[in-house]
């Protein structure tokens, strides 16, 4: 499924009138593409994701799904930085949440959820509550909930930023393994340049507020990727190119 964003603008209510967080943003997500969104804090990355998910309406412009012919709007499901698991539900019920929302009968959705838990090594925790899990396992459960629902597009908002470095790498690899072969589009928001390059087919760099596209970079890293080892030298070089673009937006301009 293709997603197009045209002339997207977003205003925040500010103390002195509306504050423009995103301005005139054009973007296209190709079918089956793993797209990274990177930019300084406050450039509207997360808001953009919320707009893509339909949780928030843009102040200007439109989001379209050209070629989509389904009976309902395409499902765009999110994964959140703070996992967003329901603390009173078992891990199994959490993972099956999306399927339940689609009206799937209990036996069928539990079978699928179990299969997904097995795949992610969480089968022993099906009846546990989220607060009985480690941070890494919670994000794994959140990924399980996301992928078992088989949405047309998946929107991930810095899902691993709160994890330690080792756990993060393991989960990044698991994410790629889960995604590969699904043919679904992914939009991945991060402010970690290296993570964006390791995971994404294409990285879009946004400017500081108001957020606009300042670069659109295709990552020359063939799939399937093994990200546990050192990345190819082209990827390492790209990292500094993006850093050079972002650095001036991070350093506050001299008064």
């Amino acid at each position, binding site marked *: 499924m293709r997603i197009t964003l045209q002339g997207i603008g977003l205003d925040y209510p500010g103390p002195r009138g509306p504050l423009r967080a995103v301005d005139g943003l054009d973007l296209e997500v190709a079918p089956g593409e793993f797209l990274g969104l990177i930019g300084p804090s406050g450039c509207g990355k997360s808001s953009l994701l919320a707009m893509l*998910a339909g*949780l928030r309406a843009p102040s200007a412009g439109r989001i379209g799904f050209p070629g989509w012919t389904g009976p309902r709007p395409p499902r765009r*499901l*999110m994964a*959140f930085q703070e996992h*967003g698991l*329901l603390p009173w539900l078992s891990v199994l019920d959490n993972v099956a*949440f999306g399927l339940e*929302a689609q009206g799937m009968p209990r036996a069928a959705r539990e079978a699928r959820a179990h299969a997904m838990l097995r795949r992610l090594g969480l089968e022993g925790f099906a009846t546990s509550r989220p607060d009985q899990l480690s941070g890494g396992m919670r994000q794994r459960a959140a990924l399980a909930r996301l992928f078992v629902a088989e949405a047309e597009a998946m929107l991930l908002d810095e899902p691993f930023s709160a994890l330690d470095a080792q756990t993060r790498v393991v989960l990044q690899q698991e994410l790629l393994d889960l995604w590969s072969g699904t043919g679904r589009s992914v939009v991945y928001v991060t402010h970690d340049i290296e993570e964006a390059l390791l995971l994404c087919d294409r990285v879009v760099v946004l400017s500081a507020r108001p957020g606009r596209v300042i670069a659109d970079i295709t990552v020359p890293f063939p799939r399937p990727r093994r990200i546990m080892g050192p990345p190819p030298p082209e990827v390492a070089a790209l990292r500094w190119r993006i850093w050079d673009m972002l650095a001036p937006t991070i350093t506050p301009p001299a008064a």
Partner: protein
Amino acid sequence: MAHLLALLLAAAAWEAAARAGWVAMLLFPPPTIILAWLVESLRNGEMAESLMASGQRLVLGFGLGAGLGTLAGLAMGLAPRLHRALDPVIAALHPMPKVALLPLFLVLFGFSEKARMVPVALVAFFPAAIAGAVAVRAIDPLLWNVARNYGAPPLMVLRRLVLPGAWPVLRAGLRLSLNAAIVVLISVEMLSGNDGLGAAVWQSWQTMRVEQLYGTLLVLAMLGLVFNRCLGR
């Protein structure tokens, strides 16, 4: 265990003080006399009768009041406009002394059993409604986004998000409701009850048999303990 020991020690001290004449027996009868009355009233069925009458009023009055209160509270929590409209009404009606209005309720409800349950239901309503509204608004907005994003239908949102999410705060409100209901029930029965624990309390003063007061209060404490335990700690 420690509770029980402390209770026994206090009872023993009371007993000794009463027997030695350090406290007025008339107002502070020793625990053995209270227990003897309690045993006798349990044996002859008087206590069971009182408990049945009060328990029935409490269950119906509290159930109705707290049930409607919970519904109103959840509705207010879910609909901010409803909350803005009802909040001042609740704020104004909550402090009304429901027992003071008992004569009115008796007239309005034809002097029936209903009239005695109305004040109980009313006091139970408000804490449940207030807690319900707060409880819903206290649910993490992230979880609302999750439910919306996954397209959960309204009934599922209620069952999976609103009810379990609101439960901890709601439960505290229901405990307050329950205890307010018990206090008012006893007052109502003292004023107008032919039966029930409140009538027994009133009778104990009318006959100056204070052991009956303490014995009844002891049963009431047990009743409170059991009902509150049903709502969790």
